[in-house]
């Protein structure tokens, strides 16, 4: 199984290392042709304004949207969440409008407000997740088809999923937390090799039967 990591800017090397540690072959994606043969894609943390420019300049936008439309899993952390949001607070144009949420950039403030906190993410089991939030965004609004995977104690939403798209405001790749990447790998495997004799199945943690 190969999983791509968008490598135009940001902490892509940390995602690459995480994928390698769970036995997945990582592929750095800087140009559209690098998307060939991968079963899923991670969008790293970084500066979303810089990533936006690089995605546009090298014609990645259309191919990334096409890739998402195949049903392959995409997983964005922090800037990766902003890149995939349909609405960005403050009226910025969306980059890859894949996730029916409104995100607020730098929602906690500047670097001095960056923090670490324990989170509960029920779809990943009982063990809490150590969340590293760096100039992090939050999700201010979720659409009808979006599952909330995790919130802070004050209710602010920090992890979401809509079908094949997963996004977190924090950085599992900085916390040695492999469960999100494992989930992406599982989804990618099911997407690429649906079990013999069955129609392409929905992933067990995927919410079923909700109106779109």
């Amino acid at each position, binding site marked *: 199984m190969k999983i791509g990591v968008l*490598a*135009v800017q940001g902490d892509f090397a940390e995602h690459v290392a995480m994928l390698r540690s769970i036995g997945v072959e990582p592929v750095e994606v800087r140009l559209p042709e690098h998307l060939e043969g991968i079963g899923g894609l991670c969008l790293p943390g970084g500066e979303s304004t*810089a990533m936006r*420019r690089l995605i546009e300049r090298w014609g990645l936008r259309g191919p990334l949207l096409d890739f998402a439309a195949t049903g392959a899993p995409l997983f964005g952390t922090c800037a990766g969440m902003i890149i995939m949001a349909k609405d960005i607070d403050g009226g910025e144009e969306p980059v890859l409008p894949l996730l029916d949420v409104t995100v607020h950039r730098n929602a906690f403030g500047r*670097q001095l407000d960056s923090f670490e906190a324990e*989170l509960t993410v029920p779809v990943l089991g009982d063990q809490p997740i150590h969340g590293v939030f760096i100039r992090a965004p939050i999700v201010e609004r979720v659409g009808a088809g979006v599952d909330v995977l995790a919130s802070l104690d004050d209710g602010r939403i920090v992890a979401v999923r809509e079908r094949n798209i997963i996004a977190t405001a924090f950085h599992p790749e900085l916390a040695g937390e492999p469960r999100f990447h494992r989930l992406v790998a599982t989804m990618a495997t099911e997407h690429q090799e649906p079990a013999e004799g069955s129609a392409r199945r929905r992933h067990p943690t995927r919410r079923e039967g909700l109106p779109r």
Partner: protein
Amino acid sequence: MSAETSTWTTKKGLAQMLKGGVIMDVVTAEHAKIAEDAGAVAVMALERVPADIRAAGGVARMSDPSVIESIMAAVSIPVMAKARIGHFVEAQILEALGVDYIDESEVLTPADETNHIDKHAFKVPFVCGCRNLGEALRRISEGAAMIRTKGEAGTGNIVEAVRQLRSVLAEIRRLQSMREDELFVAAKELQAPYELVRQVAADGKLPVVNFVAGGISTPADAALVMQLGAEGVFVGSGIFKSEEPARMATAIVQATTHFDDPKILADVSRGLGSPMRGLALEQIPDAERLAVRGW
């Protein structure tokens, strides 16, 4: 939920988010907007770019807070600012302003000839310059959460940056080749804490992000240091001392991402106008060399 702010992970984590990117020196809010639009990952707020500091002579100090604040208000990307080496009060002021990173910088006139700032004492993270591995590890032991090689700022000449980056990486490779029992003496020779030396020998890299600064003035310069092993670049005078700053800034951003693709490098290097004029190192008297500041 018990949230903890200003942890070591969040301090060095911000630098990790800047990797593969370009941090640009800016002196006005308009410059900062140009840098952000070009795809800079952060800006360094200054009163004068290093080439002008070099030309002006005299004592170079922290910028006026109003300059820094106007730049913080103009852009959404992180804003860094420089304090003099050892000037912990300038650093306190920058922290009070809420900058995202402090550069304890040799580009400004040092305030202390013996001690650097105790950077562990601050909530805001620091980046520090180095010329070699020993200097890098001493800065990290003082609390620097990001390292940059110094190059020779304000010259538009990449030669010092290349020398220093090669030196840091060669010394790391040398540590990796050593027996465990040889690392004690290596630490003594590097004048660096043994624990950090052992960690570098085991990991084969610095424990914090390592950028290159000082002398980058073309897309090819940026790609050169990226191919050598830099994790990102600072560009000071190279952008706003060039003929067409916006185009040069954009091209250097593209080259930093596609550093390994000569076709793209050729593409982005085309028709950029003149880069900054630049200085041969031999033209600079020893007393005006910036890289030797800090110890």
